[in-house]
């Protein structure tokens, strides 16, 4: 069973409008790579050229900010929930 990933409004154009999608990987980084395989272009929105999560993007694993866990190296188990949340309200 893959992880559940919650997608914010500004990124739903990549997921065909879906608010929640499934993606697999042993770490958050691997899940992001799987998202990119399914929805080309989405990774560039989430990560900078050096592969780090962009400053204005927050990723939560089961409600905890991965910046306070192990960033993209944070381990993911089947059935975990990842939420991608814009850091700001946006206007």
């Amino acid at each position: 069973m893959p992880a559940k990933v919650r997608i914010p409004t500004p990124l739903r154009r990549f997921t065909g409008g879906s608010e929640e999608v499934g993606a697999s990987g042993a770490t958050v980084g691997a899940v992001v790579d799987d998202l990119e395989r399914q929805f080309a272009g989405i990774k560039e929105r989430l990560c900078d050229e050096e592969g780090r999560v962009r400053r204005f993007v927050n990723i939560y694993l089961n409600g905890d900010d991965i910046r306070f866990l192990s960033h993209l190296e944070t381990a993911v188990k089947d059935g975990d929930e990842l939420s991608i949340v814009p850091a700001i309200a946006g206007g």
Partner: protein
Amino acid sequence: MAAAPGMATDAAAPPAPARAESVLDLIGGTPLLDVTAMGRGLSPRVRLLAKLEGMNPGGSVKDRAALSMVRHGLATGALAPGKTIVDSTSGNTGIALAMIGAALGYPVTLVMPENVSRERKRIIHAYGARVVFSSGMEGSDGAILKCRQLLAEGGARYFKPDQYFNEMNPRAHFESTGPEIWEATEGRVTHFIAGIGTGGTVMGTGRYLKSRNAAVQIIAAEPDDALHGLEGLKHMASSIVPGIYKEQELDAKVPVPTDTAYDLVYELAARFGLVVGQSSGAALYAGLRVARELDAGVIVMIFPDFGERYLSTNLWAGWKEWQQRHPRR
């Protein structure tokens, strides 16, 4: 008593009073700061001026629109004793409405996305306003929709200034921000730059400046993508377009990358002693882009607020790395 700044009816913006009866009398009359030195290799005949809207008593440019909308509500009877002021806001308008409500004795309820900064929530609570949170996943549009729902349930009890559709929003800038810039530059302003949140600032100020000199260029700074980190600004192509926003009145739009805007905020702090919010970084990015193309000109940028209310946010997430790349001499 001083005439109320922000509600001037002629071209001359009243000077800020030395002594005021109400915080509301202190709205407007903000200064320009010359930040030309932020540009490298600019023509010596170009000036870059930042209008420091953080000097307003509520701490942002939104004080102007909020006061104008509330006063209009009182004048028309739409706001009367027994009613509550309600609106959806990403923060600064909420702070302004909460301040004005407190000063005038009206209760205030605000709908905002749960991911607005902690400082904003605290300030709004300090003014005694009630906050209803909408989903952070849906951004400011989620707050707009939730506010509509609240109104559908108890409409008659509420006065909704509706900053996205209320013509008093751009009007406030036509009557105060525009004249202030015209006077402070002695009519020499050639370019005006503001970010688009509701569009009120850029529309209203732009109309005034064009009325004085049709050649003044009106330029909007806009996030370069739907997913961005420029709090207070809207990426129009992917948003509910505000009714007061008339894109055809703009001379140009400059797309702003969040990362560069954040870096400019760090640089302003380190080089000018000026800590501002991310939307000021966005305005400066657009200002520098315009300045590089010019041989001569006076560019005025709106710096919507100061930075204290973002210290807990992701804005500062990259500051250490930036500092390492730009060590002090």
